[in-house]
């Protein structure tokens, strides 16, 4: 049978995908065709939904973002009959995320979580430590920023992150909320919890960064914008995904070797560390003509050997806890060990609870957050409105 798989468009992803699928094809005597999905996650989802709506059998295996299962669960087959229990090896939180109505609709493939990057050299120079709370971060950032600016680097910024009105802002804001104990927008039972003082505090704190330690421009920053500023040596702190590590330490990077990574700060002394859960799964389309072969491919690609290989060669975070103790893996990506807890305790966005309406919820949330950040509204007012909006979105049920 011929299996068409969508497993990433970016270079490294693609190379891996190609190699593993070829191996599988050779092993099983099937053929595999690679589909190159668009870059933007939103675009990929739109495309998939379009194809599902048309019951297209053109795609067998698809890559699934961590927040999607709720939205596309109806179009994916249950992998349980094919997994033979293999899912038990993976992080349970992720498996839970991938389970809907008792069906295992996707297999974890790799995971992702927000990290705080900082300039080791600058912190050292100004005698600071990596901050543990947002407040510390703000103070440190301000101090170093002002000092550096005085020293001639007018473009120095304290902190850059993703605050463009898009899914990335939801990720960032969930971290803030969670770290201040402000909940997770919608709790597991589907109750709208976002309108609470802690959440408001979190957002107001974030808003206070804009124009002080963060440029107004962050309001339109995505991952790359932030990395661009950080990597050209113009920022002290950055919130980003693990991918920035290897690039930041790349050959032509101005700050290679000067980067430190830590967990994101807590919200105040009694806050928690919080990192939003990211990452991708693999799933089989309900409309696939060869579900059996497709499922087999999924199982192969999410297997331990393959994840290990990917962790070593591409520093993809495995979804199998045992791999975080694997020596070969740790040798390649030392912070896997240091930040193990970050990855295991990553906060999922409220995708499971809100199901089909997750996108809507997320958009409403990032818009409300953006309004606060851009100073249009105070967090309290904005969150109040957001609550109303979320109620409207929810209507009778999620």
């Amino acid at each position: 049978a011929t299996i068409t798989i969508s497993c990433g468009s970016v270079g490294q992803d693609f190379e891996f995908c190609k190699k593993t699928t070829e191996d599988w094809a050779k092993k099983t005597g099937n053929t595999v065709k690679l589909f190159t999905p668009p870059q933007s996650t939103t675009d990929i989802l739109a495309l998939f939904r379009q194809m599902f709506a048309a019951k297209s059998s053109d795609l067998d295996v698809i890559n699934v973002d961590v927040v999607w299962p709720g939205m596309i669960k109806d179009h994916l087959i249950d992998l349980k009959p094919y997994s033979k229990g293999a899912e038990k090896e993976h992080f349970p939180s992720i498996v839970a995320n991938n389970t809907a109505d008792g069906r295992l609709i996707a297999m974890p493939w790799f995971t992702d979580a927000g990290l705080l990057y900082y300039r080791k050299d600058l912190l050292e120079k100004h005698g600071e430590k990596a901050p543990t709370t947002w407040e510390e971060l703000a103070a440190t950032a301000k101090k170093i920023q002002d000092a550096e600016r005085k020293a001639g680097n007018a473009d120095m910024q304290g902190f850059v992150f993703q605050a463009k009105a898009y899914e990335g802002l939801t990720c960032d804001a969930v971290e803030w909320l969670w770290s201040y104990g402000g909940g997770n927008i919608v709790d597991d039972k589907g109750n709208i919890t976002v309108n609470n003082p802690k959440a408001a505090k979190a957002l107001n704190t974030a808003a206070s960064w804009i124009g002080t330690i963060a440029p107004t421009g962050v309001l339109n920053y995505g991952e790359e914008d932030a990395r661009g500023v950080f990597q050209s040596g113009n920022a002290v702190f950055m919130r980003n995904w693990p991918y920035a590590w290897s690039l930041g330490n790349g050959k032509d990077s101005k700050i290679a070797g000067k980067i430190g990574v830590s967990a994101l700060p807590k919200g105040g002394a009694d806050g928690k560390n919080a990192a939003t859960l990211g990452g991708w799964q693999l799933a089989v389309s309900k409309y696939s003509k060869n579900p059996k072969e497709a499922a087999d491919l999924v199982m192969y690609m999410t297997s331990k050997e393959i994840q290990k290989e990917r962790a070593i060669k591409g520093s993809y975070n495995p979804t199998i806890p045992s791999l975080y103790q694997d020596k070969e893996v740790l040798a390649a990506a030392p912070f896997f060990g240091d930040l193990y807890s970050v990855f295991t305790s990553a906060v999922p966005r409220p995708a499971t609870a809100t199901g089909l309406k997750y996108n809507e919820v997320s958009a409403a949330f990032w818009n409300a957050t953006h309004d606060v950040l851009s100073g249009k509204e105070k967090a309290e007012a904005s969150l109040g409105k957001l609550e109303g909006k979320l109620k409207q979105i929810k209507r009778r049920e999620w």
Partner: protein
Amino acid sequence: MSSKTRTAWLFLAPMLVTLLIVAAWPLGRTIWFSFTDANLNDMGAARFVGLENYFGEYGLFANPNHTEGFWLSDWGISILNTLQFSLVSVLLETMFGLGVALLLNQEFKGRALVRAAVLVPWAIPTIVSAKMWGWMLHDQFGVINAILQGWGLIDAKVAWTADPQYALWTVVVVDVWKTTPFMALLILAALQTLPKDCYEAAHVDGVHPLRVFWSVTLPLIRPALMVAVIFRLLDALRVFDLIYVLTSNNNSTMSMSGFVRREMVDNGYMGYGSAASTALFLIIGLATVVYMRLGRMKLSEDA
């Protein structure tokens, strides 16, 4: 049916048939869905809900949940944004387009190259040019801020696409940059078909060039200009990708098309999204009719 009329329909037939094949199903389907509660997740389960999507409890218009008033709802804001954006950008494009067309209409050395150069903004794919501008307008490493700072025009780096104060106008500027060639090229074609001899008459009459432009050129190219503006207006009212790429899909800059996309694709509300697109269709239709009335454009005028 007279033979002339028969000829007319005969010549129209291929185009009409093609258009019917291409457009009838998609458009009809969209309009139909606007009366249902179809969801992208399960299209088969669509139920007819009448005007629910338009005027129902959660409808586009008359939504009682819009406690702050219609114009502050996402849909209301997107309508206002779109109208604002369209009016300003089309106006500017028309003016610049006219100017550039008049320039390209002159004889001078290197005209061919300038003509090609002028078309470059239009020729670069939107997905690229939008990102390119996004990059160039980047507050930290964007070349625009660098240049403006270099010339001393601004002293602090401006967050062109992020600052709500500038975002929409930045989009307008980029749109004007990108689509002025469209106007210019169409107007240029119109300029080139003007009768020469009445210009000679005006010349001998000693009419000032500006006056000639105003009293002779403009009326004569008006039909073509009107059409160019109509299509620009249509495009502008449906603007999406530029805003989407440049400023993200923030409420404060969202366009009607952006709203449609959000509802239809991101949120999967086919019915509601279809209603929004049908409403958008009606709004555009209305705008066009108003425009054609204002411009006293006659569709059935003879040669």
